[in-house]
């Protein structure tokens, strides 16, 4: 069985040690390198071409978000999972905008960690359950307090289908293949969805999907 090759990036040795201990126990995972700051991580990602990078958000020198952007600019195929102490959506949104597939809180249970790695390896999105729960609650509460009409109702069935597939981390081409339509059509649908929901990009779209519990 081919193992998932993982690069750990965190400035705290004990965090890396703990993670390594967890991951090394998994038969389908192996840690290929450890970086202690953003620059080193970018360097090691180029050298080792890992499948997944576990990236701390707050690192000295270059933070994890900027490092993700650079890693993905060089190798878009790498699945980046952010590891963070921050629960606030601004961190989630910026991480997703930088191209990260997963966003994990550092106090997530190990099942979440493993699932996030698997999802990122498969090109799917994953957000810590605690965060998705929080985002959903916020969303409901905001809808309640503002008395707004739920814009999701405006979407057609096809659009909802495409929204879910995109939010799960699929590219336009993959969605087109799955639904047996042309990528251009997917792009048109995507444009409509963003417009109807007043969203600005894929990262927004993923967050929206998390809030609406369209994805976990």
């Amino acid at each position, binding site marked *: 069985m081919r193992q998932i090759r993982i690069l750990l990036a965190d400035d705290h040795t004990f965090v890396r040690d703990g993670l390594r201990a967890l991951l090394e126990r998994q038969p389908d995972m192996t840690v290929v390198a450890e970086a202690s700051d953003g620059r080193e991580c970018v360097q090691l990602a180029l050298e080792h071409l890992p499948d997944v990078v576990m990236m701390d958000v707050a690192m000295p020198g270059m933070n994890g978000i900027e490092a993700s952007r650079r890693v993905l600019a060089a190798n878009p195929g790498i699945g980046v999972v952010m590891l963070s102490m921050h629960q606030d959506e601004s961190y989630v949104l910026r991480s997703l905008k930088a191209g990260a597939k997963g966003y994990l809180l550092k106090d997530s249970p190990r099942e979440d960690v493993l699932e996030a790695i698997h999802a990122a390896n498969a090109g799917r999105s994953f957000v810590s359950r605690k965060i998705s729960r929080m985002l959903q609650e*916020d969303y409901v509460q905001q809808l309640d307090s503002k008395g707004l009409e739920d814009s999701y109702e405006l979407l057609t069935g096809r659009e909802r289908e495409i929204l879910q597939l995109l939010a799960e981390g699929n590219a336009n081409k993959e969605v087109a293949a799955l639904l047996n339509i042309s990528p251009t059509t997917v792009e048109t649908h995507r444009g409509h969805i963003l417009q109807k929901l007043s969203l600005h990009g894929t990262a927004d779209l993923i967050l929206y999907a998390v809030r609406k519990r369209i994805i976990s």
Partner: protein
Amino acid sequence: MRVFPSRLFPVRLFRARLSHVRPSWILLGGFGGLIVFILAAALGTVFMLDRVSDEDRRLRRTFIERLGELEQIRSEIYLSGTYVRDFLLSPDAGGAQEQRTRLSGIEQETHTQLDRYSRLSEPEEAAAVESLRGEIDAYWQVMQSTFDWNQDERDERRYTFFYEQLVPRRTTMLQIADQIGSINQRGLARAEERFGTTERNLRWSLIATFTVTLLGGALLAFMTVTLTLRLGREVERRGHDLQDLSARLVRAQEEERRMLARELHDEVGQALSAIMMEADNAEVHLISAAGAQNSEEGRDRLRSINTMAAKTLNAVRDLALLLRPSMLDDFGLVPALNWQARETAKRTGLSIRVTAGDDCDELPDDHKTCIYRLAQEALNNSARHADARELQVTVKRTPESVYFSVQDDGAGFDKRTVRGLGLLGMEERVRRLGGKLKIETSPGRGTAIVAELPLMEEAHAANPYPAG
């Protein structure tokens, strides 16, 4: 050349001492001294004027008195001549006796007058007075010799005596008396000259007094003005110092919060999450080492460690955010405002809308901190006191300034009576950046907190004593 330190020492000591004296005491002493000096000068002048006029009166009186005495002597000498002539011409002895008595009376009187005059006389008259006295004594001795004459002798000698003895002597005496008179006159002239000098002295002393008073007054006025200006500058400087200090305090407090929040988040938080992970790992290890049935107790302990660490981690995270939200430094103002709005909404059920342009994230550190703290305070106020339902937070940026407002639909308050509410702190933060804070409210009409902060150059120009 060697300078002895002991010579310098008193000067230094004096200066040191003077600098310890409070300026108010110097001024008090100066003005007091000036007033005492003016009083003394006025009293001295009055006293001197009195003395001059007294002296003047006395001299004139003496002069007139002496003139009178001299006149008396002169007339008595004339009178005595007449009596002697009458006596010599008197035909009978009884008449002669009567004349003799009269003459001795006059003699007595001339002596008395002369004594009195010599007492009043000036020193330079003494010689003349003495020669007059001699002449008078001699005159009376010659007179006396005629008293013993009998009738025949009188008849025989009277004319020779009268023209050869009596008249020349009388003329001499009168000449001496005139001499004395002119000496007396000269004395008066001299006294008047003395007065002139005294008066000139008086004038000079008055001029000197006025000059000293004027100079002293001018010096004091100069000192007072200098001191007042210095005090004014001092007050202004202290005011600036105070502003500077409060700015530094705000900045230091913010810096400390930032540091603490980071430390909590990055060090304590990471350590806690590592503990959780290690507990997790240990649990797995325990299962594989001891077998599922024997590890129940140990696994419970490890789970409990995990739970405690998770709780502590949450507390630490909340504490760090409360101190200073990390988004403010990591992403900028708008994410921090959004977070604050969401947190407040979650806590209070308020509906809070944040409207801000993307260009508001990249503000100078002081500006975003200021706006964030204003928002925090305003949201808290609205939630706690205003009984509001909806809140609108707005941030707008122009090239010159940032505009910020928080508007609620709550109870409002009376600006004249209500202070507190952290309004002072808000004003302080805004003023420090050279901005304006407006609070628009009245009871029942909601509250709007509006701030406008100048950007860049303006902000620096408004703070003449930049911290650090």
